[in-house]
């Protein structure tokens, strides 16, 4: 192609470099703060990398008893009586995210199969699910509280799982739909001729071919479920705590927001998302564009 002159090449490099720095900086700050002792959290000039890095913030999050002991021995270390356990938060988030992902992918695959192979509901049916995605969830949160109380699902795992499933179905359906469409119908047709029932044909023939895509969808939906905040905030009252809510619990009556502890919690809770995100990197585009854009 065209050769870049020096100037253009320099601009290019700077542009990319700047983008990388900006992309990385807030994350760097988060991780760095998670290792800072309390007196460095709000120091001015800001402390970029702690000169006395400490694990106390992580201890408070994951091993409160050890944190108490450490604070007793070490002067200046922050001590915080935590009642909600971060382990419970991770556990709750895992249960809900995994449960909701399973439902979403399961229902989504079946529905996508039905839509692609049978044109169920006509050409506008898939768009009904898209409309779900357009709702500001806050709009129906209070009626959901009412509905869940009638169904005895208030502040429960199943309640959140259902809510998450419903709101990630658009992604599941559209993503898996685009994967199924890539598999020619004839393959199933051949299987049918051999005497298989339609669902069998799908599972034995098509599904193995889209397994990678379904897995990618599952991880994508998991990321959405794990990061969700609004429903967790409004549909729970303390029995169920997700990682996104637990961060807000690290406030003390004497010091206000415990930045370091919140940063520690944030760093660890964001790890699964980063991990899975990179695993499905190839499919991110398809997912976030509802299957419209593929590589």
């Amino acid at each position, binding site marked *: 192609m065209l050769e870049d002159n020096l100037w253009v090449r320099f601009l290019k490099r700077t542009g990319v470099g700047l983008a990388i720095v900006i992309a990385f900086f807030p994350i760097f700050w988060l991780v760095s703060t998670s290792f800072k002792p309390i007196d460095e959290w709000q120091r001015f000039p800001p402390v970029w990398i702690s000169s006395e890095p400490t694990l106390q913030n992580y201890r408070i999050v994951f091993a409160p008893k050890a944190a108490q002991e450490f604070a007793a021995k070490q002067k200046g270390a922050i001590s915080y009586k935590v009642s909600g356990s971060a382990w419970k938060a991770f556990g709750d988030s895992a249960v809900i995210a995994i449960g909701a992902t399973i439902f979403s992918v399961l229902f989504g695959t079946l529905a996508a199969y039905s839509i692609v192979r049978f044109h169920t509901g006509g050409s506008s049916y898939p768009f009904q699910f898209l409309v779900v995605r357009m709702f500001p969830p806050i709009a129906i949160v209070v009626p959901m509280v009412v509905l869940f109380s009638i169904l005895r699902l208030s502040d429960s795992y199943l309640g959140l799982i259902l809510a998450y499933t419903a709101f990630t179905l658009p992604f599941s359906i559209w993503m898996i739909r685009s994967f199924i469409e890539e598999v020619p119908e004839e393959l199933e047709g051949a299987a049918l001729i051999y005497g298989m029932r339609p669902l069998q044909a799908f599972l034995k023939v098509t599904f193995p071919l889209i397994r990678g895509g379904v897995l990618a969808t599952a991880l994508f939906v998991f990321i959405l479920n794990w990061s969700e905040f609004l429903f967790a905030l409004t549909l729970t*009252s303390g029995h169920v705590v997700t990682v996104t809510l637990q961060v807000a619990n690290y406030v003390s009556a*004497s010091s206000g927001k415990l930045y370091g502890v919140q940063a520690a919690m944030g760093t660890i809770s964001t790890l699964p998302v980063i991990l899975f995100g990179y695993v499905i990197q190839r499919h991110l585009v398809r997912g976030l564009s509802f299957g419209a854009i593929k590589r």
Partner: protein
Amino acid sequence: MSYRHSRRSFLTQAALGTAALTVAPSLVMSTRAARAAKLSLENVHVDAARRAKELADGKPVTLTILEPSGSLGNIKPIAEQWKAATGIDIQYVEVPLDQINQKVLLEAVSKSGSFDIALPASFGIPDLVTSGILVNLDELAEKYEPEAYQKDYLYTIANYYKGSLYGYETDGDAYVMFYLKDWLDDPEENKKFSDKHGYKLKVPDTWEELDAMMAFFHRPERGRFGGALYRTQYFIAWEWWVRFHAKGHYPFDDNMTPQINNEAGVKALEELIAASKFLYPGARSNGLFENFEAFGQGDKFCNIGWGGTQKFLNSDKSKVRGKLAFGPMPGGIVKGTLLKTPYFNWGWNYVVSSASKQPEIAYLFTLYACSPAMSTIAVRDVDGYFDPFRKAHYKDPQIIQNYSEPFLAVHEAAMRDSIPDLYLRGQGEYFDVLRVNLQAADVGEKKPKEALDEVASKWDTITRRMGKQSQVVQWRFIKSNYPEGIRNRLA
């Protein structure tokens, strides 16, 4: 024993001739007198625990408490003793403190029974009562509460709504002023000030005096500031509330017509805005903890706050430990004499959920937790929210160590005579309209009169929506419970 009998049969047994007039208070008194043998103030916690154990009857009972994050240290020690005494387990469900009122209210919608006891902020009690989620504790109190139980409390207005008991206060959130003693006592400054104003520096009695002192000490070019008061969100409304009352007026008249936009209200706002000039730069942006730290630097003359503020300032995190003088809320001169208007804002109440399956045991726990013996243990926690609220607390050595004696003296006096917060249904809406307009006036977006007129008209709308008749009943009740010395002097 006799508490199983109905009121009528008790009357027939105990009455000594005086016929008809069964005025409720005297009935309650005599009923209570008859039970005094069973529940005395000093042993109420022992008796409550014992009674709860009897009610539990050997079955495994668990009480769930919905509490705000950070208050665990206040509750856990008591809960452990309770468990030892009764065998009843306590479970905690924690939510961030700015969400607890709404979670209790949502329970009114979902009625899931997920908690038996809750700790909402006191100003939210009216909303919770009208939503039906709080158990009316009158009957249970009649059964169990010792006569002197609430007399030992310094502030009890928030426990009631329209005359009925709904929860026990468990925090002493009276507003207190903090001053740098060195600056006040400095002879040179005193001379300069008295030359200018005609009186010596002292803990101010009125807002006029405070504003004058803040102006006097405000020397930003030398790194000294007049005050660390707040101009943010709720704090600005709280300060204005005291300034307004100090001019001798109630916020509403007897028919709930707002009076806040009268001359006194406008003047109070103008003075507040004028005082903003003498505050430190963080006044318009800092929240609670930033304020602690800022004032703890020792370069601002005065601060406003609660017991929690003092716990910080009295710790080794602050540079002003031991260097502070304390004062009540400044008042005003009304009809020639000084009117002091201390103010109780916030507070936490133990309440019992109407969706609870064991309200009586739950009530007994709250009685237990707020008893003199147990509540002292609770207040001792340095990291918790509960500030002293019973006479007994001010004598406890640990509490004295946390807060320092001079502070406690001022705090106790303030608690005793505090004017209440706006305990009305829709409190959030009323106060929000107020603070938004106060802030707008403070930054110059609106003129003071304009801002307060808007508040008044919006308040009318809110009152109408809430049901004027109902609001009037509660307003009159609050009015009649303003401290005696202040009640008669407000118009």
